[in-house]
């Protein structure tokens, strides 16, 4: 695999460029939550809402792979026994 490249932009420059965009995205999520709250019924036990809250927790962690971690939260698990369960054998 090739080497990673450094970003040509400094952290300050990225915040300058993306601050309003990030602000707008957070507001969209907040407004979606408010909209859900105004709707009839209760979604507290909905597994999708639980995944959304888990993803929001991951967003707040200090790491450099938040996007990857959040993708995994929204993914089904991988089972390495799948060929046995399907009773198939890849060619060797």
């Amino acid at each position, binding site marked *: 695999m090739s080497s990673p490249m450094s970003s*040509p932009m400094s952290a300050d420059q990225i915040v300058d460029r993306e601050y309003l965009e990030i602000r707008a995205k957070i507001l969209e999520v907040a407004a979606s939550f408010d909209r859900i709250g105004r709707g009839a019924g209760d979604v507290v036990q909905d597994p999708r809402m639980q995944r959304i809250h888990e993803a929001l927790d991951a967003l707040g962690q200090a790491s450099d792979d938040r996007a990857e971690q959040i993708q995994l939260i929204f993914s089904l698990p991988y089972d390495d026994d*799948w060929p046995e369960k399907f009773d198939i054998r890849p060619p060797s």
Partner: protein
Amino acid sequence: MYYFDPHIHMVSRTTDDYETLAKMGCVGMSEPAFWAGYDRGSAEGFRDYFNQLTETEPKRAAQYGLKHFTWLCINAKEAENVQLSREIIKMIPEFLGKPGVLGVGEIGLNKNTRNESIVFMEHVELAVNHDQPILIHTPHLEDKYPGTRMILDMLCDDARLDRNRVLVDHVEEHTVRNVLDEGFWAGMTLYPVSKCTPQRAADMIEIYGPERLLVNSAGDWGPSRPTAVPDFILEMRRRGHPESMIRRIVYENPISFFRQSRGFDFEPPSVPEARITEH
């Protein structure tokens, strides 16, 4: 800047889109066979589709100076029908020698089922027996991670495959590393809601570097932008990446991968390429 769209479904686009792509610097595209939005009822329906891919679309593209290439298969969604899939796989060799056919694709998984896995392996067998490169579709959303791992298991268990002739498409942040680490090419699909944005594709280039990475629009009959690759070019420029780096990803990398196909007959355009001067 010239660019090549390595994965776009032009059968779903209007002729105006060919013109727009040509105006934006596109010089060629490759179109994998895919799902039409409905399940086709017979092998003869696929024969008509393969004729459209190998005869009609190259002519439409040529009106605007674009080179159109294609890949043939039965897609993962219709692969649930194993009997029909076997009829299609048996028919595909009739088309493999036609001009512009690059290989077998886009094969893959959709809901990660047993039938899809069986048909995937039979497509790989077809590609190996006919010495063809392979283009792979990975599943959407929550199915992508397990499906991509399953696909890699099937490919990596097959010692006959040349991994440099296999492109695994629709990678995202949680699958790109696995694909590259195993020695395959990886394609990032710029597609609204599902898949990847131009910004996230640029992030992955910064994290993993440009080697064996491609970007494509997948432009199809769903909500999608056939001009997504120029969106990626603009994002890379706005971040200050050099023109040589961007050109490598959108032009040189696809040509390097496709050059491994016998059906890739491509001459760079004779018109000089407009470039932004690097400082």
